[in-house]
């Protein structure tokens, strides 16, 4: 019998709310955080909207020692980790350092920091490049800094698989806990709303060029024409269930199942891998499709990708067979941060008996999904599925359940 792995703490930095209370109130209330970019002047770029995390003042939340060596993405991750640990009632200094690890995901690393150092290099010379550039840009930097700040020396790492990475990291954290580490800090934060990061994102050709915040990111809508990127995500405290119960922890729920696939090469004639990833996750959790109360969709807002997702969901759950929602319509797509934020929403939906809505969209009838639209839906939620797809063909799915 493999041991059960549970989530006991959440730390959230979302474009529609900083901190778990603000985020959840905004999300249930249908409040969007998408707007014109303020972190740089976007007027010369084809895409001008983003979901930016509001009101984050790193200087008030982190020691001065960490500021010269961290990008915004790492500052958000460190603070979210602090909040998640506090939410879980964990004081890391009181626990054995090798019993705690950190596994996060990243799609970009510290782009804004890196941009500044590259500008210094080319405009002034190599002696003007910060020594901290050696790691501040790097994908693994959030895991490393969380580990150092909290004295966590157990198994640690980073997963890079675009938007699917947030679930892949949680799966890796679950493996490490099953191998004997009692606590892993997981989840992900991504943030690269800066010119260099923006051009890298534009290269995918999947960004929406609409300038109207309520019309720019419309998954499952006939007018779907790309997505709005955002910054942020969620950090999760994951623990061995028995250890968590032994210390009397409040338990949000269990990470019950995981599945991941890679799409076949284009033109191969084989079907996309999303359905299989969902089926693998359900089988791993030991739950039937009919047991799932809500699906947090990937919601690519690309007509072909939306069709594939709708087909996969209808194939597994039956036509309009399960409630589907995409609260990321309020935040934009957060890359690695998106799925951990959806996991946080799933646990809060379980806790409060309410499914947050999908906003702004008028769903195309042919997708035949039971989308939760405009208003939150009251429902007993015991089991939820979170789906995430990454650029390059990554498909991942995680099943979470209410604590037994």
């Amino acid at each position, binding site marked *: 019998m493999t041991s059960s792995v549970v989530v006991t703490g959440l730390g959230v930095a979302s474009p529609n709310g900083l901190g778990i209370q603000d985020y959840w109130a905004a999300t249930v209330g249908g409040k969007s955080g998408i707007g014109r970019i303020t972190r740089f002047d976007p007027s010369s770029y084809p895409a001008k909207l983003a979901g930016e995390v509001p009101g984050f003042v790193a200087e008030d939340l982190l*020691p001065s*020692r960490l500021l*010269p*060596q961290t990008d915004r993405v790492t500052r958000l991750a460190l603070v979210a980790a602090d909040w998640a640990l506090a939410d879980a009632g964990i004081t890391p200094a009181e626990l054995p350092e090798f019993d705690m690890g950190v596994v996060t995901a990243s799609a970009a690393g510290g782009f804004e920091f890196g941009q500044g150092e590259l500008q210094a290099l080319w405009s002034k010379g190599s*002696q003007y490049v*910060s*020594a901290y550039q*050696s790691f501040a840009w790097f994908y693994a930097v959030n895991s490393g800094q969380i580990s150092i700040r909290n004295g966590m020396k157990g198994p640690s790492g980073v997963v890079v698989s675009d938007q699917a990475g947030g679930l892949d990291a949680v799966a890796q954290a679950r493996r490490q806990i099953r191998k004997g580490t009692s606590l892993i800090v997981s989840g992900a934060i991504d943030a690269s709303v800066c010119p260099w990061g923006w051009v890298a994102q534009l290269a995918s050709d999947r960004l929406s060029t609409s300038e109207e915040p309520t019309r720019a990111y419309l998954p499952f809508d006939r007018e779907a024409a790309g997505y709005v990127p955002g910054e942020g995500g969620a950090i999760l405290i994951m623990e061995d269930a028995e250890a968590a119960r032994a210390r009397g922890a409040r338990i949000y729920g269990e990470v019950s199942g995981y599945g991941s696939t890679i799409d076949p090469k284009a033109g191969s004639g084989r079907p996309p891998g999303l359905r299989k990833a969902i089926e693998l996750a359900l089988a791993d959790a030991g739950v039937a499709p009919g047991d799932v109360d809500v699906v947090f969709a990937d919601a690519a807002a690309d007509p072909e990708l939306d069709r594939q997702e709708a087909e996969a969901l209808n194939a597994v759950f039956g036509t309009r067979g399960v409630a589907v929602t995409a609260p990321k319509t309020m935040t934009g797509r957060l890359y690695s941060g998106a799925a951990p934020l959806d996991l946080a929403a799933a646990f809060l939906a379980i806790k409060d008996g309410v499914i947050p809505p999908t906003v702004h969209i008028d769903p195309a009838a042919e997708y035949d999904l039971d989308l939760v639209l405009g208003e939150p839906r009251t429902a007993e939620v015991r089991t939820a599925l979170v789906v995430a797809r990454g650029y390059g063909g990554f498909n991942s799915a995680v099943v979470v359940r209410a604590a037994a």
Partner: protein
Amino acid sequence: MATTFTLEDLKRILLEAAGADEGVDLDGDILDTEFEVLGYESLALLETGGRIEREYGISLDDDALTDATTPRALIDVVNAQLSSASAA
């Protein structure tokens, strides 16, 4: 061009380069306190050394920088470079 490098100069550059550890008082008697005890690891000192080089127009030897484990030792290294630069 400044010709002497003081503890005040070092403290200012340390703060810009790497901030200050909570619980460390840089205004205390730190001249002979090891950088490690003050909370500055090798990378923080590398960044500090780089900023001193830029500001004072000197070049600090890597070994000299590594061997200077206290503020007094680092200040001496910098001043030795400054005086040899002005003598040259």
